[in-house]
Each structure stands twice: as C-alpha cells, then as structure tokens.
C-alpha cells in the first residue's frame, strides 16, 4: 500500500512538472503586422523575433500577416472581440482610436522601470495621449526626391531646387512620346486613388513648402490662410495640368517612376526598394527635396493591450525594448533600410548598402526639427474623418473648378465642426 501511495505521489509530481513545462512552452505571443513580407523591414522584424525567442526559452511569437488595406478593420475586430494580439503593431494614424477607448497599456511606468531615455526619440510625442505614453514610435521618416537623370539630361534640365524650378521641370518632361494623344511620360507622380490619408500626405509636399499646415501647435485649425491657398493652388496646378498620372495607387506610381516613365518623385525611404527593381534603376538619382520643410512623419508604432495578464505584458515589454536596443536600431537601418528613431543609433557604414542613407537621415531630422507630422495636432482623434473631408473638398475644387480661396473657407469650417 505504501509502495502504491509512493508511486502515486511520484506520478503526480512528475505530471505536475511536465504540465508546468508544457505551460511555459505554450506561452505564445500573437503579433499581427502588415510588414511581414516587406523587403528589408519584414526581415528585420523576423530577426528581432528570433533574438527574442532565443533569449526567452519556451516563449514563441506567432508572426502573422494582415493586409494593410484592411489592417485597421482586422485590429478593430480583434479588439472588439476581446482577443487582441499581445504585441500590438499599428500605423501612427490609427492607434489613437484604440488609445482613446482605453485599450492600450500606458507605457510610462514601463519606460521608467527600464530606465530608457526617450529624449530625442523621433516622433515619440505622437504617442502621447491625454498625458500618457501609449506606444513606442518605430519609424519616423522624411521625404526625399528622386529624379530620372536621363529624362532631365535629354530635356537639358537641372534637378529642381524650389517650387518654380520643380514646376518647370515637371511641365517640360510631361510628354506624349509617340503622338497618340496619350501621355507616356510624366513630370511627377502622386497617388490620388488610395485612402484619404495618403492623399493628404501627397498634397502636404506643396502645402508645407507654401508655409501652411492644417493646425497649429495648440490644435487650432489654421486652414483659412493665404499660405494654404498657395499650397492648394500648387496642388491644383499639378493635377489640372496632368503633370502626374491620375487615379493611381502609390505602388503603381512608384513602378512608373522605377521604369523610367516619370521625371521626379517625392517619396519616403521605401521608394528605394522599388527603384532597385525597376528598369530605369541606373538612371535614378536621389537628392534633397526641393520643398522645405520636407514631408515627414511618424509611420508605425508598437503597443500592448491594457487587459492582458501581467506576465504577458512583461514579455511584450521585453520584445519592445529589444527592438529599441542599440543593436536593433542599427539593424533597422542596415537590414530594414529605414531611418531608426533612436537619436543614438549607430548608422555608420549604412551608406555602403544604401548610398543615399545620409540624405534620408538629413530629411528625417529636418522634418522632425520642424515638427512636421502627417497627423495634425488637435485632429488626431478624427483623422480619418478629417482626411476624407479634405480629400473630398479638394476633389470638389478640381472637378468643379472652384477657387482655392473659397475651398479653404469650407475646409476650415468643416474641420472646426469636427473638433466640436
């Protein structure tokens, strides 16, 4: 009897041990992203996951792709169903609704506990909501200009350095090459078909250079200004004169440029990946944008849900800090081809693989110093409605031939209505 009892006890102890081991081995963190197969960036995420799993035996990260076009829908549904991923990856213009609903964990105590100095972390102020840090900015970028040297040389033109020379180059290089009545080559290129957010970003090139912006630092709407009229007039000129192909998605416009059917392209760091695969790869030159300040902005953030268990929060925070480490901030540039937000990131030698990397850093710094962001202060919670309203009023201006001076008044009134 005693032997049986002893065996039962030993069996129970072994079972408990095995179960505990299995429970640890089963710790799985869900991480949904739209960047899983982005050239460079996807590999960088995977390297961070590998490093995390190596340093946390028994913990795995389930890295799953969700399409960018339906990403916000997917995340909203997961949060609404009470089943969000533990590692929350969001675009910097969409985390606000999750933060406003109280679904994101305030990160200030975690930052303080880890002793991380966030001073100078590019774009981090965007992650502040109601006085709390709800996310960590993973990418802040500045726009650069790329031009097709062959097209400019053939037209006897120099790369533009301001709005006037930009317009002159765009006009001179927009051509119907075979005389069939259809334009084959464009002076510049903007996405005008995608979402409203991207539409606004494209317009912002001209608006910022004209000295205008949607709101001021206090969040007051500042649309009805002479500068904004000038900015809208420039956008109207580019579209009305068909200096850009219209109704095209961003990837299609980039492809046109990469294949040598466009003279100038203002874009973010991601343009390089497309131009490297394009037919006109050898003709493409990267330069400083002719507009000041350059368009810049926060791109994507990492966060964690407020209502997951504490032990999972600790693991997620470990993963976030790993991506913020000097080692991974460096590989964000070397492997991902992105400008790391950390002010102390060692990016020496990156120009060997990405020749224009110093330019990317320069425009990022310039945009950050000018406080440029795509999401206007005071309208961040209504960004989708705001961007759609601006896009529609701009389309109305183009379709109905309205004067920009008239349009800015409508935009101003509607933006103020949104703020309530």
């Amino acid at each position, binding site marked *: 009897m005693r032997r049986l009892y002893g065996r039962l006890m030993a069996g129970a102890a072994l079972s408990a041990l095995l179960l505990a081991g299995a429970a640890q081995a089963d710790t799985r963190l869900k991480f949904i992203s739209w960047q899983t197969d982005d050239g460079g960036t996807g590999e960088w995420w995977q390297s961070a996951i590998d490093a995390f799993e190596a340093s946390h035996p028994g913990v795995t990260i389930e890295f799953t792709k969700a399409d960018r076009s339906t990403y*916000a*829908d997917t995340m*909203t549904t997961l*949060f*609404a*169903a*009470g089943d969000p991923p533990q590692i929350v990856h969001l675009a910097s213009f969409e985390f606000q*609704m999750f933060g406003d*609903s109280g679904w994101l964990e305030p990160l200030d105590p975690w930052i303080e506990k880890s002793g991380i100095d966030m001073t100078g972390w590019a774009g981090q102020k965007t992650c502040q909501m109601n006085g709390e840090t709800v996310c960590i900015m993973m990418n802040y970028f500045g726009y650069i200009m790329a031009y097709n040297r062959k097209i400019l040389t053939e037209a006897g033109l120099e790369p533009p350095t301001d709005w006037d020379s930009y317009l002159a180059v765009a006009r001179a290089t927009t051509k119907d090459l075979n005389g*069939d*009545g*259809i*334009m084959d080559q464009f002076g510049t290129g903007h996405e*005008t*078909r995608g*979402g409203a957010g991207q539409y606004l970003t494209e317009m912002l090139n001209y608006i910022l250079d004209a000295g205008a912006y949607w709101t001021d630092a206090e969040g007051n709407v500042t649309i009805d200004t002479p500068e904004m009229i000038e900015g809208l007039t420039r956008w109207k000129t580019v579209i009305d004169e068909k200096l850009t*192909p*219209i*109704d*095209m998605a961003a990837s299609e416009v980039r492809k046109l440029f990469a294949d040598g059917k466009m003279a100038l392209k203002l874009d973010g760091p991601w343009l390089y990946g497309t131009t490297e695969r394009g037919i006109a790869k050898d003709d493409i030159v990267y330069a400083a944008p002719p507009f000041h300040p350059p368009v810049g902005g926060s791109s994507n953030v990492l966060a964690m849900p407020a209502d997951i268990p504490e032990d999972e929060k600790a693991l997620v925070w470990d993963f976030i800090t790993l991506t913020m480490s000097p080692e991974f901030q460096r590989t964000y540039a070397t492997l991902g081809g992105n400008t790391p937000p950390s002010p102390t990131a060692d990016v020496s030698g990156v120009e060997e693989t990405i020749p224009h990397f110093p330019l990317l850093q320069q425009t990022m710094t310039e945009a950050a110093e000018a406080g440029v962001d795509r999401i206007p202060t005071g309208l961040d919670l209504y960004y*989708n*409605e705001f961007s*759609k309203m601006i896009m*529609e009023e701009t*389309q*109305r201006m*183009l*379709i109905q031939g309205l004067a920009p001076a008239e349009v800015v008044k409508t935009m101003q009134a509607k933006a103020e209505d949104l703020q309530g």
Partner: protein
Amino acid sequence: MTHIPTRRRRRIFDLARPSRQHILGYILIAPAVIMVALIILWPLMLALDLSLQRVKIPRLGTARKPFTLDNYEWLFQSTEFWMACWITLKLVIVVSICCLVVGMATALLVNQRFRGRRLARLGMALPWAVPEIIAVVIFAWMFDSSFGLFGWVAVKLGIADHMIPWVSSPAAAFWAVAITMVWKGFPFVSIMVLAGLQSIPSDYYAAAKVDGAGALQRFRWITVPLLMPVLGVTMVLTTLWVFRDFSIIKVLTQGGPLRSTQTLSIMTYDQAFQYQNYGRAAAVGIVTLVICIIASVLMLGRRAKSIY
C-alpha cells in the same frame, strides 16, 4: 386505477398517430430552425441593439450603453444618407434594367439552334463564374484613367480627345461601377431566363404560328407572360445583389469621387471601419434591411399578379 394515467401518457406522446404527426415534424425541424435563428436572427438583433446605442467601437462582454434614437435622428437628417439612398436607387434601376435586357437577349440568342451553341452558352455564363474580386481588378485596369483600355479605345476611335478620368469624374465613376456590375450580373439573368425558355412547350409557338402570329407577337404574348414567374424571382435576386454589393464599388472607386458611388453598403462600411461609429453603421444597416424587405415584398407581390 394506476394503469389509466400510464395509458394517457402513452397516448399523449404517441407521435405515430396521424393526428399528431405534425408535432413530430416540428420536433424534427426544431434543431435546424434554432440554428438558422442563431445564425440569422441573433446578429440582426445585435445590430438592432447596437443601432439604439451611442457607441463608437463596441466590445463584447461590456455593459450596454443607454437606449437612444440618436443614430436614427442623425441618419435621417444626414444629407450623406439621402445621397447614398439616391445613388443606391439609381444603381439598382440602371443595373437591374441593363442586366435584364442583356441577360434576356443573350438567353434568347443561345436558346436558338446554331453551330457552337454550347460554346456560346459557356461564354455567356463565364462572367458569372469569375470571382467578383478578380473581375473587379480586371475592370479597374481597363478603367485606368492614365493607361486603361477603355480610355485608349475612346481616344483611338476619336470618341474622346484625351483619356477619360473614370475614377475622378462623378458621372464616369458611376458608369464604371454600373458597367462592371452589369458584366458581372447579366449571366445570372441569362441562365435563369434560359431555364425558363426551355420550360415553355413548343406547341404554344406552333399554335401561334398557325394563327398567324409574328415573332414579336409570339414574344409578347407567349414568351414574356410565361417567363414572368422566373423573371420576378430573378429581378428580386438581382436587385438585392446590387443593393448589398460592396466589393465592386470598394475596389473600383471606394465610393468616390465626392460620394458619387457611395451606396448604403459602402456607407455602412465607412461608418463602422473608417470612422469607428458602429452605432451609426448599425442604423444604416438596419434601414438598408428594411428597404430590402419592402422592395422584395413589393416585387414579389407584383410578380404574383403578373402570372396568368
């Protein structure tokens, strides 16, 4: 004494008795009915409940917000809603009529005996078999404002002197959506009408010919009346499809420009997923459902009177 209640109980549960066979029927279909109710009615009840709350993003398991009619008040005062109703109505009328005309014409054609009829029938049904999203992507390329096939053909034929801005002109965008919908929707009408045509006895046509009826008269007085039951159901289904279709508009125009292609389905999506106003989105959805039910009842009632 003790045997009597037992006998009574046995009689009550004797479902084999002819007078109680209907109870057995109800019991047998009950699981299916409950399942259908859960699948259809429960989400509907949730949507109705959501439409009566001021809620941005709902979360399962959280407390219900107070009852309010705010979402419906906003909806009926919103010009956006009435514009979406008008766009939906225009699209339903244009697409349904075009589908009927093209579908009936093709069905009449492939009902004739000619060489390659089988191939023609296959070709007629092809757009229906192509997945909607693939069809829309192809049409999006053909309607491209800078390099699209339709614009190129228009320039080459001298119809236009420049590429047509299909997606950035309100009128052109509406027609781009309508044409895509007709292309995708007419084969269903064709298939249904073809089935209807083959069920009409050839004797009727022979008798009419003997009486001296011409082709048009035979079509007017034999084909159309006998097809009415099929046409009624087909038109109800086509109308409902146009009403609820989302992917064609979403991929082609996203409801723009200037909301010129924003139907009630697109408005529901935008309110929910773009603006995170789930209460308002649910209100649009419920109103759409009511409109669909009314339209179906009216059309089916009309069909019943049309049969002789």
